[in-house]
């Protein structure tokens, strides 16, 4: 229920104990009282929207400027559009976004292949550096993979 009392300053004791020094966010924040103007501050010219932009539903309109790096697309884009129907407080905002990120990684591989490029995942993961600076660990991992692979193959052959 909204209290529309405009004469709040007549409430007994109103403002008696104000301590302007008691600003817990100082020195990060140089308190000016402008917060009470809410969103009615001077703004720059709005950046034109030329791409699909997903806006937080916790704000009435777009920020003055925004990034245009990767508009939503594909299955991950559909999931992101769903996520943005919910506020930043809700798990149904964040969990779908994480799911979309994982799907997006696979979409990226498909996109690469469609363009005729097989992604060099070893290079992308920086394994050249691993080989140079962590050879022993890399060899150890390769041995484990070999042993597990051999056991698995033997087991499957035996089963046949």
């Amino acid at each position, binding site marked *: 229920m909204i209290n529309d009392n405009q004469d709040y300053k007549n409430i007994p004791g109103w403002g008696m104990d104000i301590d302007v020094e008691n600003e817990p966010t100082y020195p990060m924040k140089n308190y000016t009282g402008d917060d009470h103007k809410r969103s009615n501050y001077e703004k*720059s010219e709005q950046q034109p929207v030329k791409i699909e932009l997903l806006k937080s539903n916790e704000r009435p309109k777009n920020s003055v*400027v925004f990034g245009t790096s990767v508009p939503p697309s594909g299955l991950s884009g559909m999931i992101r559009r769903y996520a943005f129907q919910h506020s930043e407080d809700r798990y149904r905002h964040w969990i779908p976004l994480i799911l979309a990120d994982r799907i997006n990684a696979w979409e990226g591989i498909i996109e690469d292949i469609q363009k005729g490029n097989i992604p060099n995942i070893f290079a992308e993961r920086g394994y050249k550096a691993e080989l140079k600076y962590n050879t022993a660990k890399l060899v150890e991992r390769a041995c484990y993979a070999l042993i597990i692979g051999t056991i698995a193959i033997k087991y499957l052959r035996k089963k046949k």
Partner: protein
Amino acid sequence: MLAMNYRGPYRVRVEQRPMPEILHPEDAIVRVTRTCICGSDLHLYHGMVPDTRVGSTFGHEFIGVIEEIGPLVTNVKVGDQVIVPFNIACGKCNFCKQGLYGNCHESNTMATAVGGIFGYSHTAGGYNGGQAEYVRVPYANVGPTVIPADMDPDDAVLLTDVVPTGYQAAEMGGIKEGDTVVVFGAGPIGIMAARCAWFFGPSRVIIIDHLDYRLEFAKNYAKCEAYNFKSMADPVLFLKKITDWYGADVCIDCVGCEAEGNALQTFTGKITLMQAGAATALQWAINSVKKGGIVSVVGVYGPPFNYVPIGNVLNKGITLRANQASVKRLLPRLIDHVQSGRLEPKKLITHRVPLEEISDAYHIFSSKLDNCIKTVLIPSTKA
């Protein structure tokens, strides 16, 4: 132009991408001359930050030369060499006007919980970052600051994030003369926080981590006590013991969501993603600080939620202070510290790598190979 391209968790590459364009009259295009990989970029690289889209270019720590300006840009001109703060700030909203440049309300459409940050996912505004030859810089009248003529570019690039974040971490601690300060995390930010803490007059600065080579570096660079938590049965008990069973006056979390040291936090935060990363360092900070003490947080956590002992915050009367660094507010003071020789940021740099080798650079930093502390990427572009 060449730019970093994120392909999914633990996968990045460099490739040719379109040149950035002026999209707003207050934009500038900057040719990048130095750019760093930040510890918080690793959270993106590891797939920990929601809405990190494949095809994004990371990088929020960069300096460069102004190549092009929009019609309303008056504070910088073409050819200026500039430090670009990692926060994108309009300078006009109530938050910017009160010095909270890291909380600008007009730079991020996608989320209200964080202001715009270069190359830091769509949760932070969807901007391409500076791990590229060129980058679009919005609000060029506000953020970019001309680099003093006598400043080394390696010092300048660390003024975009590492130095201001470390300094603000100490500043938020409200350190009093004679205080004992504990810094969790001996990455670049933690080392800088420990070094900057001395500006506020404590009698002891202690740093905690699990990597000996970083602790050794921190001990020498930040002139602090350094301890490896892997050698302790219980880090909180250890800290209580060495502070006369009282607790530290100020604890600073410089680790964030990928902390090690607590199996339950690691399982729920890093393996199963049941919380927004492992909040081990924050848990230790809350439990190690004295009653009525201050916990300062600059470690990055994801947006949803974390398991932390909030009951102890209440019962111990702890003041919890946190924010993204307000780089623009701090720059004049920090430039003075660097120019006077009191701070030597470039000593943190252990690796200088061509932009083309970004995949290896990320892997080295992420896996802590070759005693890596801070990596600077250098694009080969010439004017």
